[in-house]
């Protein structure tokens, strides 16, 4: 039993380490900024997820103290990763893409990176 728990925790730790390294290696390997946006998602989901699962298993099965802290961190990171990626992509666009290169939005309001938000919401038109 002891050996099975150790193998399980070690498995998740190795998976987490490999994916964390892959996520950071992608930062120097990929050529373009928008491509590089893809790499750290591996470190966020599988890297951190593996570390947290290993930590949960270790503390509940070896130390005998079960806790939900790790799930909170996972939930928070999963929620914020999308917002962070969206903001970084917008930052890249506002500095490197001109208004002519983008297609029309087909609505009253243009692209959010160039136009101010409208006074009234679009549904009230």
């Amino acid at each position: 039993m002891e050996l099975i728990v150790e193998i399980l925790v070690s498995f998740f730790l190795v998976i987490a380490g490999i994916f964390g390294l892959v996520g950071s290696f992608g930062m120097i390997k990929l050529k373009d900024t928008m491509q590089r946006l893809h790499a750290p998602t591996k470190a966020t989901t599988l890297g951190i997820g593996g570390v947290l699962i290993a930590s949960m298993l270790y503390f509940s099965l070896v130390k005998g103290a079960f806790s939900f802290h790790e799930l909170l961190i996972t939930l928070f990171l999963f929620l914020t990763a999308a917002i962070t990626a969206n903001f970084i992509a917008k930052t890249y666009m506002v500095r490197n893409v001109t208004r002519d290169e983008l297609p029309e939005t087909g609505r009253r309001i243009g692209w959010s990176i160039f136009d101010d938000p409208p006074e009234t919401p679009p549904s009230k038109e």
Partner: protein
Amino acid sequence: MIYATLAFAMGCFGIGLLLNLWRIMRGPDLADRILALDTMVINVIALLILYGIYGGTAIYYEAAMLIAMVGFVSTVAYCRFVLRGDIIE
């Protein structure tokens, strides 16, 4: 066996931090630097939790949680500053 794999995982995330530092140094765009800083925060969270397992204490979860929140807020604040020239309008 757990301690050997802990050392392996810590080494992986430590090398990841160095690779992110290289990307922060090289750039070339500001978005790359913000992205590399955000990835550094992710790596530091993983390192903190690994150190918590290594020490056998649960005290580092709070630190990891706080760093996750501060990292998210700082990334969004930096991006908003570049986007709008102001953080809270």
